[in-house]
């Protein structure tokens, strides 16, 4: 990744069950994406996890990572989104 900001926000939303964090973390580890921060809550009965991930040394590009997470999310039964941190920076801060 040659982008100046290689940080990605990964969000996971779905019905709570055992092992969600482990499985998402596994996928990230397999692709050499480094987890910088995790926060997790239950919002209105929904498991909601937000991860900040550094993909500087990631084996796949952003599009590839999104796809991999999408597939894993479907297997687990949760919705996983990955967005560049820039998007949030731009939308919520001047």
């Amino acid at each position, binding site marked *: 990744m040659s982008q100046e900001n290689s940080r990605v*926000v990964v*969000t996971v*939303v779905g019905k709570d069950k055992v092992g969600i964090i482990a499985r998402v973390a596994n996928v990230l580890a397999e692709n050499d994406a480094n987890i*910088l*921060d995790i*926060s997790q*809550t239950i*919002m209105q009965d929904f498991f*909601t996890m*937000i991860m*900040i991930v550094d993909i500087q040394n990631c084996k796949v590009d*952003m*599009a590839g990572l*999104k796809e991999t997470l999408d597939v894993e999310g479907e297997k687990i039964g949760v*919705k996983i*989104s*990955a*967005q*560049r*941190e*820039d*998007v*949030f*920076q*731009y*939308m*919520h*801060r001047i």
Partner: protein
Amino acid sequence: MPIGFSNEEIMQTIKMIEAENLDVRTITMGISLLECSDESPEKVYQKIYDTISRRAENLVKVGEEIERDYGIPIINKRISVTPIANILGSCKTDNYTFAAKALDDAAKNVGVNFIGGFSALVHKGMTRSDEILIRSIPEALSVTDLVCSSVNIGTTKAGINMDAVRLMGEIIKDTAERTKDKDGLGCAKLVVFCNVPEDNPFMAGAFHGVGEPETVINVGVSGPGVVASVVKQNPGIPLGILARKIKETAFKITRMGELVGIEAGKRLNVPFGIVDLSLAPTPAIGDSVADILEGMGLERVGTHGTTAALAMLNDAVKKGGAMASSYVGGLSGAFIPVSEDAGMIRGVEEGSLSIDKMEAMTCVCSVGLDMIAVPGKTKASTISAIIADEAAIGMINKKTTAVRIIPVPGKDVGESVVFGGLLGRAPIMKLSDFDSSEFIARGGRIPAPIQALTN
């Protein structure tokens, strides 16, 4: 490890994109074709085709890359070019359909959704080239798929060219007739403007103005669904506070647009022009400007109070957007096309929304009577009179107004027409039964209003 945002902010963004149809409606590359003039139509065809194919070679690819990289849908990739009438003055021909073919072929070659600029600016008078272009419009729109055409017939500074208004009524009728096998689809790609902006990225009215650089990237944001959701989550609150919430939302939507525009410009090595802050509806359920107005507490769009609600919405969108981007341009306001907005369609079908109310609404929002289907038997002079009314609103209020009207051949009030895709579906609207032909037959020029004397 500093996270710069709260969880709520992060989830809000995700929700906007995944549940509320937040998207970038269009990345439009403006391309100057001034270098393409020649006496020979064959040479002009080749020059136009080559110039567009070369400059826009990577437009679609880069658009898709950004879409994938940032996870923000970019619905359309489009091209706008120098008004064709301005570059063909020296061309030895009396029909410009070949140039429309060149645009169409080049657009298909680079894979864009639409190409705009089969246009003429005739607000004060017509050159020979302008008139050839206008008279070529019906044929050009019937033999091409992606070409959009626009004609500017008035400005606040120049007044209204009523000879051109009269001619455009006939051209619209002829265009409908020539595309009658598709219910007059050609007219959906033809806009008549007053005070046309030179950097509008939205179709069908986009062209690359004469004050623009060689190539430029303009972005049109969308997001009626996001605004509608904010309005619906806040029932009963006073309008001043609601306006603030809409403003905050418009700010965020516009930031997305600017991010995409700057990134596209960087990757294509083309200067970034403007973000157009328009709320552009799509036929998708929930992506409707009418929904926002109804969310404010109106039973159906078009009822009393609609103009006030729209005025507030339009203003709040502009205020939020103007803070979010340094370069705001184009049309920038709420669009109220009928066929492209499920809520507007319902308003017409249930009788709450008439063409007269729509005309009033166009006084307080961007654009004008947009994607209106009317009976096929409508006289050319009546269409001209509708154009004149809209142009007058634009001229006096120093704003852009436009008419995109489809006299659907063989259809009448009570029937509807389906154009498909982003163009949607339109019920045929009722017009006045009374005649305007003597007024239109006068021709001439409505003088520039006193508002023009600003120097």
